[in-house]
């Protein structure tokens, strides 16, 4: 199934994702602030934070082993590599195959795995707690996500995001069947969990009771923390990109620069929509207790299952 999408474009897309990642966070924060009638920081704030952090020195926990130092590197690398699998400006499979949706999920899981390991390394209670909670939620999210992917993939017979996006591109939203809507609903339920936002996680707090992902970053500092943050920004946009590729049609793929730019704009648009959605959810819901999260994900599970059922039966 090798397509005609040149490898260069793939790399460009990857870079675009990495660069746009913090912006999305900034936008979401801005919208939240607005909804809370605050001025809020500028949407470029995440970039400033990153640069500041990269300039700082590091404080390393005395109990941390040699792994700790390299954790941010690995996490960042794997997350960015995941970025290379998301079609951004142009759909269709790349000229030389790289990976599919399963690979994408796998890479994200790897990043999570390493983050959790790093959290345990410092030997503090918070790190362990964060890791424990993160690894409790993740296994529950993954199967549902897998089913959502499958319910789309079944229509096409492939799990390769490029092909999926292509199919979507040809079929306009009017051509959707019930299964697609249900799948989208499930995806929307999952997005906050996967991007670590309310109602599953709360990125803005460092309260012991509420933090999952942040808890794992506590011991990182300076450039290390910077890398981790960049990774989580990238992770967020990659997840949104996945949702987009699965459900939103990429505009008509024109050849040449115009087509690519067009694709870029449509992509940005879709991401923006999803970002707004996230912001709305975050500011209109409260964070759930940890042991209510399974019920919440259960909704997603049921939706995904129904969409699969409709797809197959």
């Amino acid at each position: 199934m090798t397509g005609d999408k040149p490898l260069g474009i793939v790399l460009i897309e990857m870079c675009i994702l990495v660069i746009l990642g913090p912006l999305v966070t900034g936008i979401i924060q801005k919208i939240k602030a607005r909804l809370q009638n605050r001025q809020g920081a500028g949407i470029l704030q995440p970039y400033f934070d990153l640069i500041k952090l990269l300039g700082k020195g590091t404080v390393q926990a005395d109990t941390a082993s040699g792994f700790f130092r390299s954790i941010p590197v690995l996490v960042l690398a794997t997350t960015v590599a995941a970025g290379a699998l998301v079609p951004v400006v142009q759909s269709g499979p790349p000229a030389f195959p790289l990976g599919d949706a399963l690979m994408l999920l796998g890479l994200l899981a790897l990043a999570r795995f390493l983050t959790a390991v790093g959290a345990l390394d410092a030997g503090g209670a918070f790190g362990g707690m964060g890791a424990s909670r993160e690894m409790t939620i993740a296994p529950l999210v993954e199967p549902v996500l897998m089913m959502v992917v499958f319910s789309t993939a079944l229509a096409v017979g492939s799990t390769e995001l490029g092909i999926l996006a292509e199919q979507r591109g040809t079929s306009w939203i009017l051509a959707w069947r019930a299964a697609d809507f249900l799948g989208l609903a499930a995806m929307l339920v999952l997005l906050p969990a996967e991007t670590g936002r309310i109602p599953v996680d709360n990125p803005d707090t460092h309260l012991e009771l509420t933090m999952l992902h942040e808890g794992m970053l506590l011991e990182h500092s300076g450039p290390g923390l910077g890398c981790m943050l960049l990774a989580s920004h990238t992770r967020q946009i990659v997840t949104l990109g996945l949702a987009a590729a699965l459900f939103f049609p990429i505009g008509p793929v024109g050849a040449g620069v115009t087509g690519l730019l067009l694709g870029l704009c449509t992509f940005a648009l879709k991401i923006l929509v999803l970002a707004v959605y996230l912001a709305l959810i975050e500011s209109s819901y409260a964070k759930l207790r940890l042991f209510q999260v399974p019920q919440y994900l259960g909704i997603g599970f049921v939706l995904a299952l129904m969409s699969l059922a409709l797809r197959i039966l």
Partner: protein
Amino acid sequence: MSVCFFLGALSSLLAWWSVRLSLITGHLAALAGAMAGLSVSLGILLGNSANKLSLPLPSFFPFARQSLVVDGLSAYFLLVISIVAIAATVYGPAYLQAHSPEAGPARRATQVLALNVFLACMVLLCCAGDALTFILCWEGMTLSSYALVVSDDQDGENARAGLLYMIMTHAGTAMLLVSFLALTERAGAFDFASIRMAANGLDGTTRSVLFFLALVGFATKAGVVPLHVWLPRAHPAAPSHVSALMSGVMLKVAIYGILRFGFDLLAPVAEPLPPAWGWTVLILGTSSAVLGVLYALQQHDLKRLLAFHSVENIGIILIGVGLAMILWRREDAGGSLATLALTAALLHTVNHAAFKGLLFLGAGSVLCRTHVRNMEELGGLARHMPWTAGLFLLGAVAISALPPLNGFVSEWLTFQAILGGASRFHGPSGLAIVFSAAMLALTGGLAAACFVKAFGVTFLGRPRTSHAEHAIEAPLSMLLGMGWLAALCVFLGVAPGFAMTLLDAPTIGLLHSLGASAIVTAHGPLVLSTALATPGGISGTTISMTMLAILIAALLPLAWMLRRGLRTAPQRVAPTWTCGMVPTARFDYTATAFAKPLRRIFAAIYRPRREVIRETAGTPYVIRRMQYTGDVVDLAETQIYHRIHYGITAISQAIRDHSTGRIHVYIGFVLGALFLSLLLFGGGQR
């Protein structure tokens, strides 16, 4: 090859005058045997897929003609065995010396002898060309592994574990025996060829009955839920390199048996297998995968945890096998799904052998340096034994099915096969298949959680006890053993395409259709691809592990530059932030605590038991001491086995108590027997 094992067995006798020597020679002989096996199997697998190696054995028993036949399937499992055997034999001597230096010559001799017999039996079992050899090796394998389990140390725990192991596998073997003998009696001979001939004449029900009998037998050995209860006891009890063999290889031998029976001996000539077979295997596999990992999550004994993961992985393999059984000869012409599923199963077989072997060896290194298996007493080992820690982490990533390592590849193939199967079967059956995919994903996630716990609690943080503090790095030979398997994990992960040619012979041999490499690596060895026939024409998925690995490799230096920071800044080392208190090992998150949330979420399955004992100082508000104990029960164990066990023992106890010693009763019985049999049989033929 078997000669080498035989020599190894002999060399165990050396133990009477030099323990060390016998250890070395015994393991060297085994190593040579493994090498020989490797070469033989590679010779078969890389040659054209049709050729077989067969040599008749001298007839030990007048009633059976025994022979060895190595076809593709045998060769493939021979390969798996040899791979792990090499690592184990390299690892073994140093481990035994370090773990139990006090052991006398008798114990050493037993261990060396049993190890060689164990390997030899497994090898010959896979190469068996007739039922008798198969059964003899099967039992020999059980017996020698039992010897290894009980020989590890003399406390009663191992003996009990071994007992349970023997009883369950023996019960399984009985089923297997019936199934085999029913075939041989039909065939009038023991060799597989004539059994095949005889099986052609079977009617559907008999065929299925025989298959399920055999399936029970093999499933017991493979530790499939709910027949798994012996496994998490026996495997940890064995010496670690033997645990690696048992988990990594012995279970696979059972898989070999299932494949041999399902696709070869009992398979109908031209029509597909009865649907019940495949579905049963698929369901068994799914439940084993999920339950195995769920129980593994709650274990705090490192080796026990690994043993439960073997249950999980066997489940994953069986999912592939089941799919292959369902799909075989049911898809329209040119269909490649069955091959895909089988490839996934076989590939996962070797993958699991590699990383589970690696993990058990790693656990062994920890064990022989700390003499502690309970994770709660470990911690902070990463700084004392960095190499072991690194290799263990590699294995953990691999077993959690994370790219770019080998675990991911086989699970990816399984997922693709499931996708194909789901698009092939519409209706509830398709849904069931997809559901198994969801369960597989759940399994993967839970496995990742479990190994974050296992690795983090064991190797990271602060040492919790003095055992862990004074650990030192494992000796070189042990690291070598692990390194070999780790290299395999990486190779099979980064360039799986090259391994596919090895899978051609078994897949073609079993399914009589396209080979694995023709389907999976259609676009060259660097690319894994699948082709599914969908309503919208042929479509498929292609990934390239190699490219991805290169990409990550390229990204690492960039990320590293970022990590270094924009300008050179001071680096300080400070104690972990614990709200201002002075951190001690008690601050570290324990394994129990780590797994607690999942325990609560899956409480329905775990049936957790917790009791808290409070010692209050007079008033209930001042608590002096608190003691918490909690554990989870194995449903199968409590609900099935305990009842059977108690039932039988109670009955026999009652019978025995009511028996009398009065001679009059004795005479009465004789008289009664005579009277009754005269009444029953004596009456003339009127």
